């Protein structure tokens, strides 16, 4: 797993974008801005996924996460029409929170450095696996030659991890019903019931 050359550049680009927008997000004045910034970080992470050849996940990320969830966030922000929080943007525990996250950061960095020293991640990544080479076998549809990420995921999803898949669908169903119930106004209920 070694991104070299252009990919490395892309990685750094996207990484920096993600982190910067993340920081701007938590310091943005208006909720809509922070939503937008979050969307951009998510798109950046989607880009990262693409870098790592996880196309399907990238697609899903954008389709569901950005297209669905964050649109919802923006909807809610508009409904709640949170004004510009010019005055108190942060809660009283800003200091404590900040310090705490700082220490957390230090801790995480220490862990990462330490793991790097160990032989857990050998720097030299092995030769790229064979499948990477595009075989030009004609009878396969052209996209096969590039990578079967989606196909592999599809197969695994429906063979090894069928149960989690069903449970996930159940969770979504519950979420839908919950959301409808919570967000429904008394008046609406009266009319439709």
């Amino acid at each position: 797993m070694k991104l070299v050359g252009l990919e490395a550049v892309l990685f750094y680009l996207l990484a920096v974008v993600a982190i910067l927008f993340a920081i701007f997000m938590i310091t943005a004045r208006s909720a809509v801005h922070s939503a937008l910034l979050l969307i951009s970080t998510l798109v950046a992470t989607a880009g990262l996924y693409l870098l790592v050849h996880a196309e399907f996940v990238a697609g899903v990320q954008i389709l569901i996460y950005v297209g669905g969830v964050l649109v919802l966030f923006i909807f809610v922000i508009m409904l709640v029409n949170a004004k510009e929080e010019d005055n108190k943007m942060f809660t009283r525990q800003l200091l404590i929170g900040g310090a705490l996250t700082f220490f957390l950061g230090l801790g995480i960095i220490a862990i990462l450095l330490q793991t790097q020293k160990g032989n857990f991640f050998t720097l030299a990544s092995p030769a790229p696996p064979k499948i990477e080479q595009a075989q030009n076998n004609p009878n396969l549809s052209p996209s096969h030659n590039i990578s079967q990420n989606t196909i592999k995921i599809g197969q695994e999803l429906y063979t090894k991890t069928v149960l989690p898949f069903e449970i996930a669908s159940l969770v979504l169903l519950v979420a839908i019903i919950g959301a409808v119930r919570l967000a429904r106004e008394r008046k609406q209920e009266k009319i439709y019931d």
Partner: protein
Amino acid sequence: MDLIWLIPILPLLGFLINGLLARRFNFSEKLVGGVAVATVFLAFVLSVTAFVNYSAWSKQPENQAKPYISKTLNYTWISGGKAFISSNTTPITPENSLVDLNIQWAYQIDHLSVLYALFVTFVGLLIHIFAIGYMHGQTGFGRFFAYLNLFMFMMLTLVLGSNLLMTFVGWEGVGLCSYLLIGFYMTHKEAAEASKKAFIINRIGDLGFILAIIGVFSTFGTLEYQEIARLVQNYPVEALGTFGIMSFIALGLFIGATGKSAQFPLYIWLPDAMAGPTPVSALIHAATMVTAGVYLLARMNFVFQRSLVMMLIIAIIGSLTAFVAATIAITQKDIKKILAYSTISQLGFMFLGCGVGAFVAGVFHVITHAFFKAQLFLGAGSVIHAMNNEQDITRMGGLKKYLPITHKTMVVSWLAICGIAPLAGFWSKDEILAKTFSTTLFHPAIGKMLWFLGFLTAGITAFYMTRLMALTFWSEQKFLGQTASDGGEEESNQEANKNIDQKNDGGSFKIRAVTPSTTNTEAISNTTEATTNDIGSFNIEESKDKAERINLNPPIVSALVADPKESPSIMTLPLIVLAFFAAVAGFIGLPVGYNWIETWLSPVINSFTLHAFGTVDIILALVTMAWSGTMAYAAYHIYVKNPHIAEDLAIKLKPFYQLSTNKWYWDDLLDVKLASLINKFNDLLGEADKHGVDAIPNGSALITRGVSILSGSMDRYGLDLLVNLTGWFTRAGSVLVRTFQTGFLNNYALVMVVGLVLIIIGLEYQAIQELYSQYFPAIPKIIATPAPK
């Protein structure tokens, strides 16, 4: 002969049908009576066939003196377990003294029991027929006949039982039935108390009987008569002085007999038993039940003959009872009471006979007595029936012309009981007296003395019987009748009523509306109305519904309206038959010629001490006859010719008269003395209990109260303290912790992150320490302890 088991079962069947089905499907009176009579009639027919077959069967050599035991209904009744018999004489059972206890339930007939069965069923049949007429119109008709049938079943079981225990069952059953029948008029207080009295006193007698049964079993190891007869041979006769096992058993049996047959100490219940309907008195308290005692004596004669002491006691008590009962009978007013006391005295005679060893004579007297006494009772019954339940002979008189048939039949049995020559009474009574006179069991003097007492009693019997006949039939009429001189009875009635009024409300004029009563009950209700409450006038409705409610009350004295008319044929027929037998029965035991009954009973009763009937006996018999004849004429003379003599005699012989009317103060002795004695004893017990026994629980209650107070306080102050302490701690603690729950979302998030940081530091302290020790040398270095190898 095989159907002998059916004899007792048939009345039982009758009882079941009448008892269970009569009320449910409300049989008509005719049906109920028919069923009852049919069953007894069939039983009688069977017993006759049994008698005939048995007499033939017992002729054959091999079953000489052996009872015939019926095959069917012959099963081991109580079995299992070993009973330890401890006979103090030479052990009869050779192997050891442990014997299997199994008692058979089997019916057997032998000479004695078949005879008894015959006359019981015969007399029973006649009384049943009589009862149909007598009880006509009474409510509880079905119930009465059910009880009668039950009584027959019990009596036949008693008689036909093959062992002592079955006899005992019959014994108890008969007692039960007498209780039920005496107390037939449930609502009437006297009847209920009389039945209770009879039952209790019988029970006292039964106690003795039970002990005797146990005695028999513990000595002989079996209760079968056959076995006992065989085993008793090995026992010697105990002389006068000694009181051995045989005497003990005999004593027990004798006590049972006295209880049942109303002998001296336990006779008081019989007069009171007259409260029952007359057929009951006739059947139970004259012919059958009371004779059970004699049956027992006759059945176990081999035991009695082996203890001379008991024989003497029986004889003495027998004669004593006879004498006493006779004297009381003289002054009685109630017709049934007189007959009751006469029964007691006759029973006394039977016991006297058995006592002196003449068991056969005893049994013979039982049979003859059954006939004429039953006839007398039924006659009295029809008299009472005619007189609309009037029982006081002083109020009757002159019934001769009203009740011709009853009068004629009663004259026959009157002569029989007085012991006039050709009739049954003479033969049996004189045989007993003859046997007592010449008994060899005891010292001849004793025999002579007993005979004299018996002789006196015979005379007295004749006296009071003629008094009875005179007062009821021959004396001038003393009741209100259409033809009677009006006012005579009227005054006595009114005068009787007047004193009642005075007592009640002092002088209020009372109209005694005497309505032409269609049934007895109507009349009765009027009179009770008049006598019980003292209202000025009474309305018909109230009395009518009161009648419905207490329709069971017995017929009580009431002013007669119509002339006493003769009872219907259904009642007079039995009278005639009985009278005939009362006359004829004597010939079965003629002392001179072929004494049939002697030979018939000889296998059962081996009365080895008796001697032939000599010329002395004949003279004695004639003397007694003459003596009783004179006594009869004297009574006739006093009571018919000139009634006032009776009052003078009564005044003159005041002490004797008092003695007699008060039944020798025997009842008072029992009721007053004994009862108060018992009460005193009870009070004593009560006191002891209050002071002595109660002290213990009260004391313990005191202690427990003290202890509980102590533990309560210890608990309140000691234990609760601890419990409250914990409660207090939690409250204090919660205050501390509560501050933590601020309700703000971000605080909770903060806590989570703190947790996270701590985890990270905890896990990776090594890495953190290395990396940042350069910049913050203050981070303490922890040398991780090497993991154990």
